[in-house]
């Protein structure tokens, strides 16, 4: 009935070419965890499917000499969750990966597929914003690089244009001794987030915050970061009062909706507490080193 041609190119260039030719009816498919579910529900009915499974470079994980990590778009959530090389501040991405859905889905789903779908309640978006990730996108004109903060445009929308595919996620080195933490509230294990907080935090020897990036998920069309709020803590000791001030400022930028996971009102109430918890966890994790 549903007719879709299936392609399995061996290179990114070929994938982009087929997708470009396919126009609006074309879809790249990586792990399938999201796209096939939507196809089964008849929410999308592609004419052309372009499998990314045979493209070797998309499966790679590597670290550049400057400490930048490159996670190929086809890396499975399981691989990212157990990636021992994601330590310190970059660990926020591994911690988020470990909380996606459940083990069999983590065996299938990929980082590229997940962020391309851009469910605002998904785990990667706030983690990538907190990690200051850059998304590598391939298109007919070659590769381009988009910061995570500009990648998620809101409610299932991303910076990826038709004919383009996400090829990798790049994580810059976090400051020395930085810690990454991901705090998620969900109804049952494996659910999308009611609300989530990702942060990367570093302190100096005096306990002063030298680095902070914090993003909230599940409270609007995309991950929310507020540099103005972060500035209330950076350069100071992260006291409960300062963290509360940060949260109070950040909450102003949230735009949650009521849905079957919970009310907007609750999300606004809960986020400051999740932020406080995330700080507490991150600071606890730092303790042995301090």
């Amino acid at each position, binding site marked *: 009935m549903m007719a879709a041609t*299936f392609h*399995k190119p061996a290179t990114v260039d070929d994938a982009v070419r087929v997708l470009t030719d396919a126009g609006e009816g074309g879809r790249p498919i990586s792990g*399938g965890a999201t796209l096939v579910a939507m196809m089964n529900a008849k929410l999308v009915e592609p004419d052309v*499917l372009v499998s990314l499974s045979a493209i070797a470079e998309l499966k790679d994980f590597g670290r550049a000499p400057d400490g930048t990590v490159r996670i190929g778009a086809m890396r499975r959530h399981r691989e990212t969750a157990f990636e021992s090389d994601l330590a310190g501040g970059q660990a926020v991405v591994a911690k988020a990966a470990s909380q996606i859905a*459940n083990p069999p*889905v983590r065996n299938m789903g990929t980082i590229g597929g997940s962020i391309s779908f851009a469910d605002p309640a998904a785990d990667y978006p706030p983690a990538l914003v907190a990690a200051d990730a850059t998304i590598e996108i391939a298109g007919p004109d070659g590769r381009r690089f988009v910061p995570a903060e500009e990648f998620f445009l809101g409610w299932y929308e991303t910076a990826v244009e038709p004919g383009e595919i996400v090829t990798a996620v790049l994580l810059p080195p976090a400051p020395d001794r930085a810690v990454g933490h991901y705090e998620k509230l969900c109804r049952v294990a*494996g659910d999308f987030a009611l609300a989530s907080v990702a942060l990367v935090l570093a302190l100096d020897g005096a306990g002063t915050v030298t680095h902070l990036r914090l993003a909230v998920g599940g409270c609007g069309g995309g991950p929310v970061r507020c540099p103005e709020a972060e500035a209330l803590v950076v350069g100071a000791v992260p006291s409960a009062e300062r963290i509360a001030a940060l949260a109070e400022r950040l909450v102003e930028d949230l735009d949650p909706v009521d849905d079957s996971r919970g009310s907007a009102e609750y999300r606004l109430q809960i986020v400051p507490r999740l932020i406080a918890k995330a700080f507490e966890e991150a600071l606890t994790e730092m303790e042995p080193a301090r």
Partner: protein
Amino acid sequence: MTTKTQDVTVTVNGAARTLACAGTTTLLTVLRDDLLLTGAKRGCNQGVCGACTVLIDGRPMRSCLTLAANLDGAEVTTVEGLAPRGELTRVQESLLKQNAVQCGFCTSGMVMVAHDLLQRSPDPDVEEVRDALSGNLCRCSGYRALVDAVIDAATGGAA
């Protein structure tokens, strides 16, 4: 309405099978409708319930979220292929003895994830087992007996 199919060769339970698949056909549909391996169940078709879980290249995955056309050269193991006919694996045996099976609709998927766990972690603790089974919904058992049966299979009934 044209149906575009392509031939895909997949090893299913040890035997190579060449299948004519439409681009959007899932592995679950192929297993159930073409190969008549109905052990994997369709509970939600969205990857949540876990009743369709099979091993693909040795890892438990959702057959309902897997496009058959993408599986050329892959190895698939279903619940029918775990043990020779008339025999049970240790974890199947343990689930049977402990009466951990109720309606049975989730059982195939549970068996696959439990089998995979014991392959990778021969002596798991309760938390490991709970985590490994957490993507498979069971509405009958309350899970405790399933967890105990997996632990028991690991310890050979010594626990």
